[in-house]
């Protein structure tokens, strides 16, 4: 399961805020309700206390009744309690039982609940103060809801604020992820630590350390390949020179035939070493700066070089577009990329075929297509052919490095590369489509 810190943090904080809001709101609600009830009880008591002192002089109609408050609902009913033994009088507003003890009671009278406070007077008479509970509860609820209101309004605001703060805090991490995501695989530049939070900086520093070690390892590997290719060249040169000189000596037919085979083998070894060195160089981080140059001129240089090869096989090598295009590139490296591709095209095209180049100018790119009339590359092979030493036909003469070199250079020069079928009807021929940054 993927664990996102941001999601977890925001979930936990949301839960915490909700629990606190519900808890605090509930507590506030209950407390406010109780306080309100109590303060109304206090009110009854105070009225009772007030009447206790002036009670003797209090004149009440019949059994006695006084209404405090204007509204019918909020009034407090005051009446004498009948002495024990006296029959209940109908004149009293509330049918209160005579045996009520001093203090608070909640009673069901006239199908309504009343809160009744009984106060004994010094003359032995007892005064009852009553108020409808419905009303009291209504007031208590109103004040309880009012106590709850801030939590109801503020909790969602707090949630929103927390979400925004979390998002802002995690923004540098998102940016960092995007930066690393969009990197090319050979880009081992350290990650900028400057704008990151301190906690992440240590982490990024560790990653940078790893990147540096990977970079050093890759550099050592490249150096080794370059050194090895370089060291191999000298003895190979000596061997070729010896074979060449041997060819000038008189020898039998059989010996000459074997010498020819030996020379072919030497030629192949020389080519392999040259390609290895080219690959090692193409994989070093970008060297020369890009400059605007004529694609036509680069093509001319490459075609001049490969023309003898094409002529040997009677392959018609040429360009189908008249207009030149200016590209932003490193001309020697682009030439090497094209040389490998055109060399491949010539190698895999049967004698009498054609290799055609076509360029097309777009706003950001110059598209260059190299089409041949060879067998083409099956769609399933198109990924793998770029791997070093991979050959579709393992008995082939190539080093298996050509397309790996092409891909490495293409990456350095920002060239996009695609392999297609040149002639979809016949399912034959390879079309290599290059998108070269336009100048």
């Amino acid at each position, binding site marked *: 399961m993927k664990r996102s810190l941001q999601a977890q943090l925001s979930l936990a904080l949301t839960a915490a805020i909700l629990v606190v809001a519900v808890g605090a709101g509930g507590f506030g609600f209950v407390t406010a309700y109780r306080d309100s009830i109590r303060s109304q009880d206090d009110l009854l008591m105070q009225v009772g206390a007030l009447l206790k002192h002036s009670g003797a002089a209090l004149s009440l109609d019949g059994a006695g009744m006084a209404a405090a408050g204007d509204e019918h609902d909020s009034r407090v009913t005051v009446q004498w309690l009948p002495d024990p033994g006296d029959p209940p009088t109908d004149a009293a507003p509330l049918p209160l039982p005579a045996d009520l003890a001093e203090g608070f009671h909640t009673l069901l009278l006239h199908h309504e609940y009343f809160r009744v406070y009984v106060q004994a007077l010094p003359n032995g008479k007892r005064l009852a103060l009553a108020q409808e509970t419905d009303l009291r509860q209504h007031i208590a609820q109103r004040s309880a809801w009012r106590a709850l209101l801030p939590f109801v309004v503020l909790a969602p605001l707090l949630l929103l604020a927390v979400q925004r703060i979390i998002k802002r805090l995690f923004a540098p991490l998102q940016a960092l992820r995007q930066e690393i995501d969009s990197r090319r695989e050979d880009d081992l530049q350290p990650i900028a630590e400057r704008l990151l939070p301190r906690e992440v900086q240590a982490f990024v520093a560790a990653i940078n350390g790893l990147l540096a070690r990977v970079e050093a390892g890759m550099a050592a590997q490249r150096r080794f390949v370059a050194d090895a290719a370089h060291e191999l060249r*000298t003895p190979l*040169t000596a061997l*070729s*020179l010896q074979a060449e000189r041997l060819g000038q000596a008189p020898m039998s037919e059989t010996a000459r035939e074997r010498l020819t085979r030996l020379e072919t083998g030497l030629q192949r070894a020389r080519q392999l070493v040259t390609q290895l060195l080219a690959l090692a160089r193409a994989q070093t981080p970008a060297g020369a700066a890009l400059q605007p140059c004529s694609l036509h001129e680069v093509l001319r240089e490459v075609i001049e070089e490969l023309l003898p090869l094409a002529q040997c096989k009677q392959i018609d090598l040429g360009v189908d577009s008249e207009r030149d295009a200016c590209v932003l590139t490193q001309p020697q490296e682009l030439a090497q990329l094209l040389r490998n591709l055109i060399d491949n095209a010539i190698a895999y095209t049967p004698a009498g075929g054609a290799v055609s180049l076509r360029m097309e100018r777009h706003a950001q790119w110059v598209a260059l297509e190299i089409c041949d009339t060879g067998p083409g590359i099956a769609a399933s092979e198109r990924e793998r052919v770029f791997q070093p030493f991979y050959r579709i036909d393992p008995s082939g003469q190539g080093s298996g490095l050509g397309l790996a070199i092409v891909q490495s250079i293409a990456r350095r020069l920002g060239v996009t590369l695609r392999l297609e079928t040149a002639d979809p009807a016949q399912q034959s021929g390879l079309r290599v489509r290059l998108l070269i940054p336009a100048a």
Partner: protein
Amino acid sequence: MRILLVEDDAMIGEEVRCALKDNGYAADWVRAGDAALLALAQQQYDALLLDLGLPGADGLAVLRQLRTHSLLPVLVITARDGVQDRIGGLDAGADDYLLKPFAIGELLARLRAVLRRRSGVASDQLSNGQITLDLAAKTACWHDAPPVPLSAREFALLRALMGRPGAILSRAELEEKLYGWGEEVESNAVEFLIHSLRRKLDKEAIKNVRGMGWLVQRAS
């Protein structure tokens, strides 16, 4: 002709020395940079074959030191083929550059070219092994066939191509060689001249590259 060969690899040195001897050069072979400087100080040479990867003094150092006082033709041999290495070698004063692995034939051809350039005798003939163009007589011949006289424009066009055998010249570049400034360029003039040159020499004499231009074969 006396050649100084500076090569640290025993096998290559031996082969090159024998090949030079076989081809009529007197060759002295040393294996280190300081030995090369010593030999150059004591003996008069006609050319220097210099391997850049040397023990002792580096090949480039030898070349730089030599260039402070001598114009001796130098052909550099190297296993480094980076563009920077090549430019470095030529900047230090090499006349030409030979990349390992090379064939003896190539080495001898480059050596001849370097010696010829330095001797200052400009040949009045251009040849690519197929066509020979006589600059004085304004004639051309195909292999061993008798020379054919060329018109002024045919000569100008063929001379442009023979100046750099193997290089492709576009129509615009050829027209530039044929017409002066302000002269009106006739359409198809280039095709017409090439057609007539092919008829006079051989239809294979001048090759066309689709969409690029024309060339004469490089000497093989």
